[in-house]
């Protein structure tokens, strides 16, 4: 580990959690591609280009974690809506539990690391 490496590490972590952020955005609701991509793109530091999210959506669909349906739109072309599948829900639940635990531990260490000597 070297100074300045943190940025790199964070970028990798972000890549790792992005699929679950997509799943989380679909919890209990359907969203069409553009809406999903714009929302993720507006989140600070989440993605570089909004176009790079589409390959991820395609993979989640291939993996059966999200499903898609076409729906008519009032304002423009038909829209491809994404929803969470059963498999996707399970993956999201598992991730949420693991993430919460990890986050709490890291938060705790970052805040009180020096007070934890045995």
């Amino acid at each position: 580990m070297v100074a300045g490496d943190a940025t790199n590490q964070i970028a990798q972590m972000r890549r790792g959690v992005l699929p679950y952020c997509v799943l989380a955005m679909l919890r209990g609701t359907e969203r069409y591609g553009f809406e999903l991509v714009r929302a993720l793109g507006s989140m600070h530091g989440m993605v570089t280009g909004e176009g790079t999210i589409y390959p991820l959506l395609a993979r989640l669909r291939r993996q059966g974690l999200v499903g898609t349906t076409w729906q008519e739109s009032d304002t423009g072309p038909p829209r491809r809506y994404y929803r969470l599948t059963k498999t996707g829900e399970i993956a999201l639940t598992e991730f949420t539990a693991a993430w919460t635990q990890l986050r709490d531990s890291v938060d705790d260490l970052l805040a009180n690391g020096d007070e934890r000597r045995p």
Partner: protein
Amino acid sequence: MTDDRLVAAYLRRLRRAARKLPRAQRQELIEHITEYIAESRAAGASSAEAGPAELRNALERLGEPRDIVAAARGHQVPARRPGGLEIAAVLLLLLGGVAGLILLGIPGLLIGLGIGVVLMWVSRRWSWPDKLLGTLVFPGGLAAVLLIVSLPVSAQVCGGSSTSGGATDCTGGSVPSLWLSIPLTLALAIGPIAVAIRLLTRARRLPDPGEPVVTGLAG
């Protein structure tokens, strides 16, 4: 530059960057990006700041085509090699009948064919229409072709010539039947060979969208 030309130029750059992606993935990506542009234009048309600036902003938000393609490569699911089961099934479907026929006669043909069909239906790589195709074209594969060609063609030629002449033509029937049977065999053989190629290609294909793949999400 007009809006349409701006979009066309962007999509051209995307296509060029994506030319090394597998075809299905490339088409899907271009479709997605086209959708995004259409959506942002539809949204822009109803807002006050419609125009080239708005579109430029949308393309900027999309990002550089080569970055998008790099992301697509990162999410690529490698083409699967057909497993031993699939290769055995296709070989038996195509050649199992012939091998069985040579070794054990008609029972051998049925055994070779039967095992091939069972292996194919056991595999999960193929959809049922593909399996049906593999079962029907033709049962016994090339053995069926040999049987079809060897039996009726010689009889037909013999019978056809006997109407014009006498029984003497029937002895010479084997020569024209040979001339007929070679192209006929080749024509018929195309069926099972084409199906075998199709099955092998389909065994490599990406899993169906509905088929969950249990692997890590990160990547």
